[in-house]
């Protein structure tokens, strides 16, 4: 039995096509005396033969080769383009390379347009008509790229990148349009940002109350803890240290 185990492995190697000539000769020698291994080997050969026959072509390989060459020469008047230097290097990688180039162009354009559309001193009125409404107490504003805080005045322009800071017992109302307002309560800080082409209100701390006309489009207020979407017409967002 031990010896047959060895020859069973050789039969497996035969199935895999990795048997050497010497091993095959040894196996054949053994099969002359071992009926079990001979039966097993014959079944393997038969199975291969049956599959090969069933999947064989009606046309011989030589005929097929000649017929295909005729087809190639009749369909193409010129021979196949020879491989140029570098072809093998980039062969099959053209699509990813092209995609990479397009992505780079897209990123560059997006960056350039984003920069062009996001200067420090462009009034927001073009995108969302806004102005400063009522102010109570002292509310400060700092423009993008500046370190100087200025006192906010009613009716003054609002710029993208502005940061509003309401001091204690102060409040200011930003008029988003005729019907909608955003009220910044005391001790709060609100930043106007551009995100995905939309003006974004980022409440860093404090509290603000939005009163929106009905119906209104998507309206969000972002906070360090998440983004709040307005579903109704009036809502208050508070950011606390807790």
């Amino acid at each position, binding site marked *: 039995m031990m010896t047959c185990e060895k020859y069973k492995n050789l039969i497996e190697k035969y199935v895999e096509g990795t048997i050497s000539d010497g091993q095959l000769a040894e196996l054949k020698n053994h099969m002359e005396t071992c009926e079990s291994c001979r039966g097993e080997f014959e079944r393997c050969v038969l199975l291969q033969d049956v599959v090969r*026959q069933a999947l064989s072509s009606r046309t011989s390989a030589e005929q097929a080769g000649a017929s295909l060459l005729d087809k190639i020469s009749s369909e193409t008047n010129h021979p196949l383009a020879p491989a140029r230097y570098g072809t093998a290097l980039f062969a099959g990688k053209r699509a990813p390379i092209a995609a990479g180039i397009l992505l780079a162009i897209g990123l560059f354009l997006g960056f350039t347009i984003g920069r062009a559309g996001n200067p420090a001193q462009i009034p927001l009125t073009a995108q969302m008509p806004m102005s400063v409404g009522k102010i109570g107490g002292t509310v400060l504003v700092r423009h993008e790229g500046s370190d100087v805080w200025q006192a906010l005045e009613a009716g003054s322009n609002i710029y993208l990148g502005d940061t509003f800071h309401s001091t204690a017992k102060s409040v200011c109302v930003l008029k988003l349009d005729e019907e909608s307002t955003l009220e910044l309560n005391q001790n709060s800080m609100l930043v106007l940002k551009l995100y995905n082409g939309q003006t974004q209100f980022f409440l860093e701390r404090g509290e603000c109350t939005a009163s929106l006309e009905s119906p209104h489009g998507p309206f969000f207020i972002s906070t360090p803890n998440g983004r709040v979407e307005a579903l109704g017409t009036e809502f208050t967002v508070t950011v606390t240290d807790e």
Partner: protein
Amino acid sequence: MAGELKQNMAGDRQLIRAALLGETSAFGAIVERYWNMVVALALSKVSDAAEAEDIAQESFLKAYSQLAGLRNPSHFAGWLSKITMQQCSNSLRRTVRCSRALGCRATPIEALEEQPAMTANPGLTQNQIHFVRQTVRGLPEKFRTMIVMRFVADLSTVQIAEQLGKRPGTVRVLLHRAYKLLRKDLAPLLEEVKL
């Protein structure tokens, strides 16, 4: 065996280089080398022999037109087998569309006559051939490719692994599983043929 493998791969590389330099007869030699494998792959997916040969022709024409894009000429057989499987899928889609549009129907097995099949090796009857093809088609695709590459193209598991970019151990396992399934399903036919 390793020497034979190197010889085959080197042969493919040389033929492909010559074909790329405009020597079409070199591509003819490639067709001769892999024609049976491609037809068998097609027959392992579609039932009609003429359709399988059409698919084989289309596959070689596609391979010829995309030859310059082949990254590693040593993997030609694996690359060609993928093209063939893709062509089979395209053909099956076309057939489904045609049958839906025209209401075509496939010939039932009962209608096939018991006569020697039109193959290069007419040893099996048409029904037996149909049974074997149906059994092979019932295998998962990865098994079918292994069986065809091993039994028809006569590539060893090491060569198949090289062609398909898999580990030889993986190919061995897949081949033995496929082999086991085939032996089980074809057992009655093997008994019949042996007699």
